[in-house]
């Protein structure tokens, strides 16, 4: 983890052995979860706070479950960013949490870099659960675990990430992780939704989805925010679906054993055809959710190791 082993703020800068170790540990948690056993003594007496400045049922629940399976006391805090002065809230909250002796702080915020700022102000380990358009490290880890279990490796795979890359923290974390692990990463999207100098992140950029998807082992779809559909950066949802929505026709250009991923929640009929999303063979979307809990257990385990040693 960078820059210290105390926090998980971003994938960028992480080394392949660190990623590998985390995935291996998560793998063991998958087996543990499936066996129905628990490890409730690991984080007993420790406090995990889910601090969400942005709504998210899926990620919050996943962290909550991960914390509880390891025996932590889990508290959910939802803070509305619209109603109060944002800056005061963030720093005041940091001070409050410090006074509560929180051990693990899971943060979701609509501003890039907010977890970095919190990490400077609190004693707890900070885990970035998605910050603005920056990163979503645990999503990339769970995606990697899902791919690795299906394909047996990451090295050399062709992964096509498709959609609103400009605003996607999921895309950024995945690009960093997958290219670090030796996958060939492509991004596909309309020119207005691809960020500046994207190729400098080590990816190939496509605007024609059929070409971008050709020969892919993995197709990873991104969510298109509703407010960006109409007239802003793309003219309409139907035009977007025509050129960048994933249906079987476009998917036919990929490898026969391609897997389809989506971080959720999905806009069916906008970025993905329902039939593709529900395809029992190729869609691994439900498996991603399962991997999410295991990966987050592994992250909580690793980040709390040092403090557990000191007790």
């Amino acid at each position, binding site marked *: 983890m960078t820059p210290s082993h105390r926090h998980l703020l971003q994938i*960028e800068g992480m080394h392949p052995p660190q990623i590998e170790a985390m995935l291996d540990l998560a793998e063991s948690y998958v087996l543990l979860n499936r066996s129905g056993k628990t490890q409730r003594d690991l984080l007993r007496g420790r406090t995990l706070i889910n601090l969400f400045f942005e709504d998210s049922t899926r990620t919050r629940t996943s962290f909550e479950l991960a914390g509880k399976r390891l025996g932590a006391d889990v508290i959910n805090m939802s803070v509305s960013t619209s109603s109060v002065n*944002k*800056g*005061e809230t*963030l*720093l005041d909250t940091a001070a409050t949490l410090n006074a509560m002796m929180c051990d693990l702080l899971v943060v979701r*915020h609509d*501003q*890039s*870099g*907010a977890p*970095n*700022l919190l990490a400077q102000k609190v004693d707890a380990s900070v885990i970035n659960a998605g*910050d*603005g*358009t*920056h*990163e979503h490290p645990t999503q990339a880890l769970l995606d990697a675990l899902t791919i690795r279990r299906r394909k047996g490796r990451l090295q050399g795979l062709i992964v096509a990430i498709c959609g609103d890359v400009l605003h996607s*923290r999921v895309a*950024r974390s995945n690009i960093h992780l997958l290219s670090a692990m030796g996958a060939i990463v492509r991004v596909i999207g309309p020119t207005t939704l691809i*960020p*500046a*100098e*994207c190729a*400098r*992140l080590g990816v190939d950029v496509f605007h024609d989805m059929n070409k971008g998807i050709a020969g892919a082992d993995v197709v990873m779809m991104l969510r298109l925010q509703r407010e960006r559909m109409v007239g802003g950066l793309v003219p309409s949802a139907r035009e977007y679906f025509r050129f960048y929505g994933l249906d079987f026709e476009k998917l036919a250009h990929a490898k026969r054993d391609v897997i389809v991923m989506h971080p959720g929640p999905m806009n069916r009929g906008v970025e993905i055809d329902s039939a593709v999303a529900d395809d029992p063979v190729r869609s691994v979307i439900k498996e991603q959710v399962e991997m999410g809990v295991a990966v987050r257990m592994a992250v909580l385990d690793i980040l709390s190791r040092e403090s557990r040693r000191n007790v």
Partner: protein
Amino acid sequence: MSDLLIENVRLIDPATNLDAPGALLVRDGRIADLGHDIGRPEGIPVVDGRGAILCPGLVDMRVELGEPGGEYRETIDSAALAASAGGITTVAAMPDSSPAIDDPALVQLLRSRGEQTGRITILPYGAATRGCKGEEMSEFGLLREAGAVAFTDGGRAIGSSRMMRTALAYAAGFGAMIVQHPEDPELARGGAATQGELSTRLGLPAIPAAAEAIIVARDVRLAALTGGAVHFAHISTAEALDIIRRAKARCVKVTCDTAPPYFDLNETAIGDYRTYAKLSPPLRAESDRLAVVAALADGTIDAIASDHQPRDADDKRLPFAQAAPGGVGLATLLGVSLAQVHGGQLSLMRMLELLTVAPARLIGAEAGTLAKGAVADLCLFDLERVWQVNVGTLPGKAQNSPFDGRALEGRVVGTWKAGRRVFG
């Protein structure tokens, strides 16, 4: 009163192209004599310059004072302290305060508040539009009469082509220029960093470098159309400088300045979301920084201003995109500029010209020279003295320097305002 002899100094005055060892005699707050053998009148207080450089007090043509309306960030008194420590004796004050400087009485107030400090002359800019809102032109004639040196909406660009055309034309009738913050407001809206690989990696809303060139290109044409004079503040991109260079060759009335961050730092200073390096315009790519350095040397850039923008900790301790842009610059103006002299990119004479007589002429200030009879606004600095910028210990109230930790060579050791020592 205010009689003084400063001896054993290297006198440098770009206005008269003077660079010679000697002494300088002050009588009644004005420069009475200077040179090699001017003698020592009986009973006069003597300052030994110990071989340091004595130049005109610096003239800073872009300063946000904090008053009125932003006193929690900076006051005129605290800004004056910082200016004295930086060798600055004349400042031109931004009008986009609260209230905006769009009334003659406010112009007079700022001028007299400057006199009261005894440290700096404040030359106010008048608001180009009422409230700096970009909608209605303010009273250029009355503001000019009250002492406004030029017109600008400060950190806000005059975005409407129609308003800019009118302002340039009308101001020309009163012999005043329009100072523009050259940034297309629509392209810059919501932006926090310059567009490029770094903004993509950090996931920050970006402003393309072209946002500057677009307004510069437009306003050059409007200046040619109206015969008005336009001055572009804090130029930061190679593209804008190319347009200005060509416009100058065609004798359009166009001038520009830049600020130390744009020739000393590049975009990488914001890495890890350092909000103290969040500026407006944003720090640019290294290629742009190099273009700014070249333009200082070749004369495309007419002056260096500190672009002092005081912010308090609460303005900055926020997620990057929400933090207020701006950095303080009074105390570090000379030190950071001298790095270009030590690095061999600019001569000392040219650098001091950019900091004294050049900005003085642009804003019509009677300052920036060591000529006999001139007011004795003086800056004494040691070209070799090494120091480090430490946020928290800077003179003045606001501490939001983008240069925290920067080691500098060259430090002010004494400042005089009208012959009275105000620093050192």
